[in-house]
């Protein structure tokens, strides 16, 4: 079982890696270099913070793009191109196929994120090396602050959740465009889920309506929940380990839910 899932995952990774990773890294590096040039124009002392902010934002954005565009095609492309027939005629249970696809894409995304994080740290190390001692003391947190990894871990968890969502839409939607639209739509809805959860506090509606909207807000994948501490980390403030752990747990549970739904849909699917 593990062996087969691993095979499918490794295959997904190989296919994706041959396509996109290099472009992702190269693009990110270019972006950072451009940003650092811009930064020279802004006030000193803020530049490290801005590079960290920008760096984390770029990692997140690049990750989201990668996830959506590779993720929505994970299953639907195989069905479209009919390469799935030969695969499903093997002794490979359908659920292992789905899980394998998920693991493979998450692996790809994580490798990308790791590469981009390394590039970010290099940049920060370079900035630190080039700065004066007096400037360095003014920074709220050290340039190569290892606590940035906490923010990266949260981004990785967010992307793992988004991958599960993209995979879910890939299993039943026949059009890649539709899958992209649905995935992006649910991502945006998830970003707003916090406001929906507290709907009743803001808007004057009957209690039943407020409860209903709040229920929707709690059921949506809460993509907004992963960046609340980003600013704290960048400013060098402490972040509770329990908070981070619970956020990661949330991502794990919800991702499992999405994968379960994908397995359910895929197991009933017929292929004309």
């Amino acid at each position: 079982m593990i062996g087969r899932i691993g095979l499918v995952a490794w295959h997904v990774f190989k296919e994706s890696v041959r396509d996109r990773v290099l472009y992702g890294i190269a693009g990110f590096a270019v972006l950072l270099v451009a940003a650092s040039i811009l930064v020279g124009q802004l006030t000193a002392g803020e530049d490290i913070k801005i590079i960290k902010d920008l760096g984390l934002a770029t990692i997140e954005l690049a990750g989201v793009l990668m996830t959506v565009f590779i993720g929505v095609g994970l299953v639907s492309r195989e069905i479209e191109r009919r390469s799935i027939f030969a695969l499903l005629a093997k002794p490979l249970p359908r659920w292992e196929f789905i899980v394998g696809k998920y693991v493979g894409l998450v692996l790809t995304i994580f490798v990308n994120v790791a590469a981009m994080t390394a590039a970010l740290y290099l940049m920060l190390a370079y900035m630190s090396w080039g700065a004066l001692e007096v400037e360095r003391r003014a920074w709220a947190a050290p340039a190569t602050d290892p606590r940035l990894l906490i923010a990266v871990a949260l981004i990785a968890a967010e992307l793992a959740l988004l991958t599960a969502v993209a995979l879910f839409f890939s299993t039943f939607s026949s059009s890649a465009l539709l899958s992209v639209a649905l995935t992006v739509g649910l991502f945006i809805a998830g970003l707003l889920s916090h406001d929906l959860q507290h709907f009743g506090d803001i808007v004057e509606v009957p209690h039943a309506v407020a409860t209903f909207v709040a229920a929707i807000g709690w059921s949506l994948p809460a993509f907004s929940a992963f960046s609340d501490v980003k600013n704290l980390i960048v400013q060098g403030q402490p972040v509770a380990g329990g908070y981070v752990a619970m956020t990661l747990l949330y991502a794990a549970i919800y991702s499992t839910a999405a994968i379960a739904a994908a397995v359910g849909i895929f197991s009933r699917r017929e292929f004309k």
Partner: protein
Amino acid sequence: MSAGKTALATLAATVVLVGAAAAVLRARDRGYYIPEPTERLLYLRSGSTANRVFLSFDAMAADIYWIRSIQNYGRDRTSDRADRFQLLYPLLDLTTTLDPYFNIAYRFGAILLAVEEPQGPGRPDLAIKLLLKGIEKNPRWQYPYDIGFVHYWYTNDYQEAARWFERAAAMPGAPEWIRPLAAITMASGGDRQSARRMLNELLSSTEQYIRQTAQRDLLKLDAVDTIDRLNAVLAEFNQKNGRYPTDLDELVRARVLTSVPVDPTGEPFAYDPITHAIGLSPTSKIGALPKKMNSR
């Protein structure tokens, strides 16, 4: 497992897992408080920067910041951290900079700023500051009226209040009842009837927190009314019996009162037999009673 059974099992699993995930998230949000980062507003402290950043979406951004102001108030109201309500004024300031004509942001924002502890920040000075900004950007009778109300109810500076009511009455569109209000306040300071009048105006507000505040404040006035009546009863008792009662139950036993008096929230009043003063029970939720307010 057949395809049909697999589908059913996974559906059940999905529902359960989504519920579990939501539970984890709720527990996290309840258990940990992440302060809303002030730094997020950093780039937007200056109004001109804010306007540049949002370009033509100022009004929409103002709406979003207004919503955040309300959320911030709602959340900080139930929190017990030392720095609660710190962000309320900056948020309201930003909202009104993005949209200088945002009427309710000035008016309701000011009330929320003035609400006394523990339900609010208790900063009538900031409330007035916000309203002064409103007068500067967009002079309307409501803003000086509101400043008058803040002085009337929160700082108890009736002279100032009367002055601002005058100003409001002089502006176009002001309702006729403000001029007599100004006169009465100028002549005899604060009184409950006028206060009730102004609080009833707030009762019809569209914003839930404002209504709640006004309701609570009206209960306060009811409480002081009741206390006044009780004081009269006590005085009568003293006249008849040459002393004050040892406790309020004695008044009930003596058939002077039909039952133990309770405040509008149902808490019995506290009576000090030595000073024969009546006040709210320490466990009452009404909050501080207005002083220096004449009965009428």
